């Protein structure tokens, strides 16, 4: 019971959101005289043959990897109370630069890939850094500046693609950068299927999946287990309190945005290294904005974001079979939209439940025992810690775990 109460708000909110979204979508479908049960059956049907099923799994995973990275990039900033809306521009600019650099050099395999990835991370981090510098020096809201920088980034990316980085012949209908030589490609992971005794689908599973997992674990450890992570979350809760207890909050803004940007730079890498090998006029766009939804649904915890990314990828895959089965594809759009809305609402509901149970249980800080990465802690004493003075934040390292909840609630508020 106690475990349930502790985990309650954390798990409850996203699950509730998904359930509400499914119910609303079912009602909409019923109103449109479409049988919701059969639609859901089509959505979970991955095909008849093992090869078809594995292809579907690969499609979902390949889509989930960039979504996960996008969610992570947004979440890192969210945890500190910063809204990095600029992820979109950061990854597009990073990908075009990385593609151009990758095509221009020839290096032995792993080094070549590493160079491309490092360039992407650096470019995106610098672009995000502009937002941070504007914020700490001039007090410009990061929401406004990052949105504006999106437009500039897209413009620059377009200029670079059509101008200096153009690699496609004149008159080709799709403009692209020069192709990255083979040493800069990242091999797929399909060999793993053979080892596990599964069918080998024609589609390649992105090797970048492994990198994404490493990055996810790294971010979880960084946020939950390090001094930097604690400072980040504390600053997110109360910049003044954090500053009073010795955290350089301006420095934290810059560092956090650089980190968020560096992760954002990775978003385009799965596609670039695993499939397209060039940046083109129709390179996948909009992932930065989808990342905001994914981060919201995952409540800014790496595990939650991974699950949210898988859910969005699963919904996305269902588009094609639904249309082949003559069902409206807008069902998926409705579900995705209602999930985002429901998450925002249910986060607030969960916060109130947590607050009420805290009031009932009295101000017992012990109840707020920390969980794993600190991102899934309950909210019982959250307000107490946040309202507290600098001493309140600095008292114990453990307090950090309590405070994170508040950060999440604020983002969801």
């Amino acid at each position, binding site marked *: 019971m106690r475990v349930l109460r502790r985990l309650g708000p954390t798990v409850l909110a996203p699950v509730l959101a998904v359930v509400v979204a499914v119910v609303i979508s079912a009602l909409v479908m019923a109103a449109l005289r479409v049988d919701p049960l059969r639609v859901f059956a089509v959505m979970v049907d991955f095909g008849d043959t093992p090869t078809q099923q594995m292809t579907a799994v690969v499609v979902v995973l390949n889509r989930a990897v960039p979504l996960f990275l996008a969610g992570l990039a947004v979440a890192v900033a969210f945890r500190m109370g910063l809204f990095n809306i600029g992820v979109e521009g950061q990854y597009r600019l990073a990908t075009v630069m990385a593609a151009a650099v990758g095509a221009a050099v020839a290096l032995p395999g792993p080094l070549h890939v590493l160079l491309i990835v490092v360039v992407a991370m650096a470019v995106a981090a610098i672009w995000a850094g502009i937002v941070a510098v504007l914020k700490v020096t001039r007090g410009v809201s990061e929401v406004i500046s990052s949105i504006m920088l999106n437009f500039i980034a897209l413009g620059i990316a377009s200029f670079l693609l059509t101008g200096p980085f153009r690699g496609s012949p004149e008159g080709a209908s799709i*403009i692209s950068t020069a192709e990255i030589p083979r040493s800069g490609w990242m091999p797929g992971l399909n060999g793993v299927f053979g080892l596990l005794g599964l069918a080998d689908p024609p589609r390649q599973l992105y090797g970048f999946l492994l990198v994404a997992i490493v990055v996810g674990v790294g971010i979880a450890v960084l946020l939950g287990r390090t001094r930097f992570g604690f400072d980040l979350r504390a600053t997110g809760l109360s910049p003044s309190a954090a500053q009073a207890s010795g955290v350089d909050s301006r420095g934290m803004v810059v560092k956090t945005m650089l980190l968020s940007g560096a992760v954002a730079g990775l978003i385009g890498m799965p596609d670039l290294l695993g499939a397209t090998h060039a940046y083109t*006029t129709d390179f996948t766009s909009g992932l930065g904005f989808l990342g905001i939804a994914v981060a919201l649904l995952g409540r800014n915890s790496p595990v939650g974001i991974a699950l949210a990314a898988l859910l969005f990828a699963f919904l996305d895959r269902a*588009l094609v079979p639904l*249309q082949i089965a*003559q069902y409206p594809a807008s069902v998926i759009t409705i579900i995705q939209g209602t999930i985002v809305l429901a998450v925002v609402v249910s986060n607030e509901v969960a916060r109130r439940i947590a607050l009420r149970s805290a009031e009932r249980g009295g101000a017992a800080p012990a109840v707020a025992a920390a969980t794993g990465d600190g991102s899934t802690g309950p909210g019982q004493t959250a307000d107490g810690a946040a309202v507290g003075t600098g001493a309140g934040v600095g008292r114990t390292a453990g307090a950090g775990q309590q405070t994170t909840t508040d950060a999440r609630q604020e983002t969801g508020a």
Partner: protein
Amino acid sequence: MKANARVMAVLLAGSTALAACASDESSGGSSSGSGENGGDLQIGLAFDTGGEGDRSFNDAAVAGVDAAIKEHGGTVTKLSPNADASNRADLLTQLADQGFDPVIAVGFAYSEVIGDVAQQYPDVTFAQVDGHVADAGNPSNLTGLVFAEEQGSFLAGAAAALKTEANHVGFVGGVQTPLIQKFEAGYVAGAKAVKPDITVDVQYISPAGDFTGFNDPARAQIVAQGMYDGGADIVYHAAGGSGIGVFQAAAASDERAIGVDSDQYQTVDDPALKAVIMTSMLKRVDVAVDNFIGEYVDGNVTGGQDEVYDLARDGVGLATSGGQIDDIQTQLDDYEQQITSGQITVPTTP
């Protein structure tokens, strides 16, 4: 104050995220074809972003398929891509995998993926509207259905130049891609052929790589309004779904506009907007698709090459609904004759 700012920020973030979710994929539903007699013909149609119901390009393809089904029987399954169109390859693979034949992809954006899919399914016949087989690596089972947009646009430019009273016309492009630049090149050449000293404003709604320009009437209206305010009295648009904004700007300025792809005088509902549409540059996607399916049924598809629909084949041309260009028809016919006979070679790049 601080809390307020935060709430605002969250709302902003949320709405952006929602917008990202809810974007383009408008009425991307699919419906079963009208093939009552259920012939063996199972046509697979894969749309570009915008999907069915755009009253323009995608709908023209549907009209072609419907006409073909009426004649030959059969059914059609229509697929729209996801919001960011990252699953184009999946659409084609699924269609080929499920036994649809022929499979028709609508839009040049399929060039990148259709080559691979065509090679994976050598027994399936593919066609791509607006796509050159050379861009897809010349697979032998792919036919490119391409149009001489520059020729039709030349006539549109000539019509604008003959009709302008300000000696000043404009062009609004959706996205600055090579395809839309063909429209621009033809239009400017046509206008200059009539009046060498004419001023032609050219502006694109979004740069290459940002496809929002095809679906953003508000920005199209701002761009076109700027041209009318700057002295232009006729503006031609090649901006897909954004074009309605150009008509709105024309109506607001009491000037005229030229539509694109389909006969927009017929497809626009608002009578106030109808009145400003002087003519439209027709791009007969429907004819091309219908012809292709007919050839497939008769077993006459060669494959591995482009079929060019130009002025000589009536693949492009000007619409006459509304009667606003009736008085200059003889001059336009003259230009058309000069193009088809080769006396005038219309440039394809600006």
